[in-house]
């Protein structure tokens, strides 16, 4: 047995006692539980405001889904959905990845990251109407579902025309279910603590039901660790898959000639980037305004700040890898794409986004004093989130504008194409050299300009972002924001020793 060999090789060698005493473990439980039970007036004030905004957003949502005239009017709506998926769905990775890598600094913030999985419910509400807005394969658009038959020089799809709808729904649903399962399994020991040690009340009642009879036996701990590892890995794979679908089926396929094999990876990376920024901002709010200031320390900001810097640099590299091939290759259809998405109507939006997502994080976070602070990485997190939102608007609104033009041509003729151009254009994957001339081909007076949001769009955006905050805040009433069992586990591996003339911490890393 490997463990016996390991035990034997350390036999007789001096060792250090960790801080894992019963007293310390109880101190952790009592403290987090006591802090968890507190709710300030400010909390309820913010919850009320966000709740009202959410209600208004829901009204706007119903108004919007019944007034989708053509896919072009869905640009901001899809941008919001994409932004929510990019931030809230990416946030749990901050708990999953460092847990797999055994990084101890993640312990106080892993729950903060995991609770964001609940926002999947809001994402699902946003996603459902998109099934009706997304054109089926009849309008000639490309899909990841391959075309197999060629008729009259055109490739005709043989797959079910709603394939993208089916698979995208399954992926989005899968991600939400996995996320909630992950959160639940992670919460089991903490629910048991609330059940056994918490004061009587609704929390105790709910925790008792949700703890599923957790007693902390060895087999239960082993079960929990294995499930969390497996679900974490599956969640990551599903996250990549969802962004694969969203980025392709809901964006790329609407713009003829947009063939960017890196795009799904870019989207998955943006999800990690946005997720880290979301958790960073949540940490900052918890640190400044919440009761857990003592747990969310500089160490967590430093650890996550390095990740934020690395992801900002990666953002540039991914963007440049695509841009370089399009820009340097000078292929006419790709030049048209650059004209539409980067240099054209959305130039200023792109420049601001570039500044917020890459330039500012890069030039500030490389400085140690800035990175090793609480304010620095938090400001950058806001910068990244705003930049990411602009990026979603730029890409989604532009793509859905083109989709709107081609779909309107289709609808106006009761399912028949009067001109073959839109269908042919989609099938041949060619955008005209200047994207503004699309309107001339389809005979519609719709210029490709930067489209501003309508009042309803603003309401929906504000309402649903507030709704995410509201739901998160409500969840923290039941679920402790700082993971009790992970904090207690830290005591197992943590010891302070004297090292020459100073004191240092030693951390054990279990196999």
């Amino acid at each position, binding site marked *: 047995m490997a463990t016996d060999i390991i035990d034997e090789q350390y036999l007789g060698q001096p060792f250090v006692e960790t801080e894992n005493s019963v007293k310390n473990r109880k101190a952790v439980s009592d403290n987090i539980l006591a802090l968890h039970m507190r709710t300030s007036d400010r909390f309820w004030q913010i919850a009320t405001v966000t709740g009202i905004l959410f209600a208004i957003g829901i009204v706007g949502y119903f108004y919007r889904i019944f007034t989708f005239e053509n896919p072009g009017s869905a640009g901001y709506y899809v941008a919001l959905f994409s932004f929510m998926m990019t931030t809230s769905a990416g946030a749990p990775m901050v708990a999953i990845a460092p847990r797999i890598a055994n990084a101890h600094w993640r312990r106080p913030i892993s729950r903060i990251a995991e609770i964001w999985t609940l926002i999947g419910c809001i994402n699902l509400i946003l996603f459902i109407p998109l099934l009706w807005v997304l054109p089926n394969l009849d309008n000639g658009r490309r899909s990841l579902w391959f075309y197999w038959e060629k008729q009259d020089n055109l490739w005709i799809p043989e797959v079910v025309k709603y394939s993208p709808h089916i698979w995208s729904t399954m992926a989005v649903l899968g991600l939400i279910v996995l996320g909630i399962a992950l959160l639940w399994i992670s919460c089991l020991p903490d629910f048991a603590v609330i059940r056994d040690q918490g004061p009587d009340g609704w929390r105790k009642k709910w925790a008792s039901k949700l703890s599923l009879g957790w007693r902390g036996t060895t087999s239960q701990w082993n079960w929990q660790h294995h499930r969390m590892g497996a679900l974490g890995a599956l969640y990551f794979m599903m996250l990549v898959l969802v962004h694969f679908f969203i980025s392709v089926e809901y964006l790329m396929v609407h713009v003829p000639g947009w063939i960017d*094999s890196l795009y799904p990876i870019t989207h998955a990376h943006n999800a990690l980037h946005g997720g880290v920024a979301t958790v960073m901002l949540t940490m900052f709010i918890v640190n400044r305004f919440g009761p857990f200031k003592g747990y969310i320390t500089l160490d967590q900001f430093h650890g996550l700040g390095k990740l934020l810097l690395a992801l900002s640099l990666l953002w540039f590299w991914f963007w440049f890898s695509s841009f370089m091939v399009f820009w340097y290759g000078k292929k006419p259809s790709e030049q048209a794409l650059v004209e539409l998405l980067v240099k054209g109507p959305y130039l200023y939006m792109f420049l601001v986004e570039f500044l917020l997502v890459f330039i500012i994080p890069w030039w500030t976070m490389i400085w140690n004093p800035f990175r090793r602070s609480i304010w620095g990485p938090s400001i950058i997190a806001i910068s990244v989130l705003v930049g990411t939102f602009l990026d979603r608007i730029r890409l989604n609104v532009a793509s859905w504008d083109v989709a709107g033009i081609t779909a309107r041509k289709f609808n106006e003729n009761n399912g028949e194409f009067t001109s073959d151009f839109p269908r042919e254009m989609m099938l041949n994957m060619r955008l005209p050299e200047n994207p503004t001339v699309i309107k001339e081909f389809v005979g519609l007076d719709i210029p490709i300009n930067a489209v501003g949001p309508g009042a309803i769009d603003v309401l929906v955006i504000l309402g649903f972002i507030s709704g995410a905050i509201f739901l998160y805040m409500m969840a923290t009433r039941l679920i402790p924001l700082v993971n009790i069992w992970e904090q207690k586990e830290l005591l197992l591996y943590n010891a302070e020793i004297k090292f020459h003339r100073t*004191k240092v911490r030693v951390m054990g890393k279990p196999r």
Partner: protein
Amino acid sequence: MQEHTQLTQKQINDELLKDILHLPKWWLPAVLFLLTIVLAGYSAFGYMIYHGLGVTGLNRPVFWGFFIANFVFWIGISHAGIMISAILRLTQAEWRRPITRAAEVMTVFSLAAALHTPMMHVGRPWRVLYWIFPYDFSRDIWPNVRSPFVWDPSAVGTYLIASTLFVMICLLPDLAILRDRAKNPLVKKIYAQFALGFRGTPRQWKLQIIAGILLSALVLPVFVSVHSIVSWDFAVLIGVEGWRSTIFAPYFIIGAIHSGVSAVAMLMALTVWIYGLQNYIKPDHFDAIARLLIIVATTWFFFFFLEWVWALYTLETPEVALRELQAEQWPYGPLFGIFIITSFVIPVPIWLFKRFRRNAVIMFWTCVLVNIGMWLERFLIVIPGLLRRSHMTFDWGSYHPSIIEIAIVVETFAFVALGMLLFAKVFPLVPLFDVKEGMINRHLIKIGRRVIPATIREGLPHHYYKNHSDPIIERSKEE
């Protein structure tokens, strides 16, 4: 890392320097054997210069053959050094310590091997000078800096300089030990020159550590840029549709890391077998690198899948024709099968089992398979890409590598092996100071009835914790 042998500093010095200060019996025959292959390769090169590029299998339209595939392969291998050394150093992965030096040195030699293949490929290597100087002084004609072929030598050259500096900085403390332990006055003097007066004062250590961390961080963008640029040699071409893919830069880099880290795992096994360093490189190290390889290989496979999906998604005739050529037609179809099987299908399932991950022999052979597959991957990108039939091409030939090309490719492998052997004779292949630091940082902690190894937590300086100590621990101490 659970397995550990606590050694004294003297033991470490004795064990790691024994093959440097004494000559092992096997060393000379091995060097002579490799030298013979290298000389045979250079003779083939001389023959090629004398007779011209016609002695190779290159022809229209396949103007890039074995040489360029081999160039991309060695650039890929060179990524291992930085991957293992810089990234693992910055992320404070403890298991990196005994293997960093070998990985860094492999980077330097594989870059040298990579650099000389395109020089041979151009047929007249002295023309390399034209990349630097105006080739017509009177008319002041400079090389075209917009050409990817000027970016290549610039990027690879920068990477080579940065990697050499990195090796040099990390070598300083070990060179000082060699200087102090060498008996021969001449040898002592040479080591003293290289050691740059390193005495191990606190200031020197501080500078050495800061330089190492800075170089790790600075070399990372170079590491990324090198293979990105190599990929853009292909991707920015309009003429070859199969190469025109935005994913090429990340795909090349992840492929490079896949082959490079596999090469490091091979090197680890060889180091244990040849130099008997099982006290330093343990099954836990193989386990750690294999787990890293599972992630890298899976990511690489996903990128490969995306590249194929997008090629088929375009439905453009040349793209589809190229994929058919790569996967279905003789002889590329069988090679394609071997490539997939060796680089992913066989190794990754094997690495999923802990028993196999901890076995040096299995790790060595699976990593050999990976590198066979990854060499074939480069071959299958280069040759079928050029071979596909396009209009306006008036002459078609197939491509069969000549014996000259094969000799030169084999020479590059012997060159890297010879370089590593010569380096290991003069400098320690396992960094003494890094291993010693690991020993000092290591402690044991007791958890329940178990005693497990623990490491001093590197990270923020201690004074940062003065104001940010753990509130719970503080509170319980007060109580």
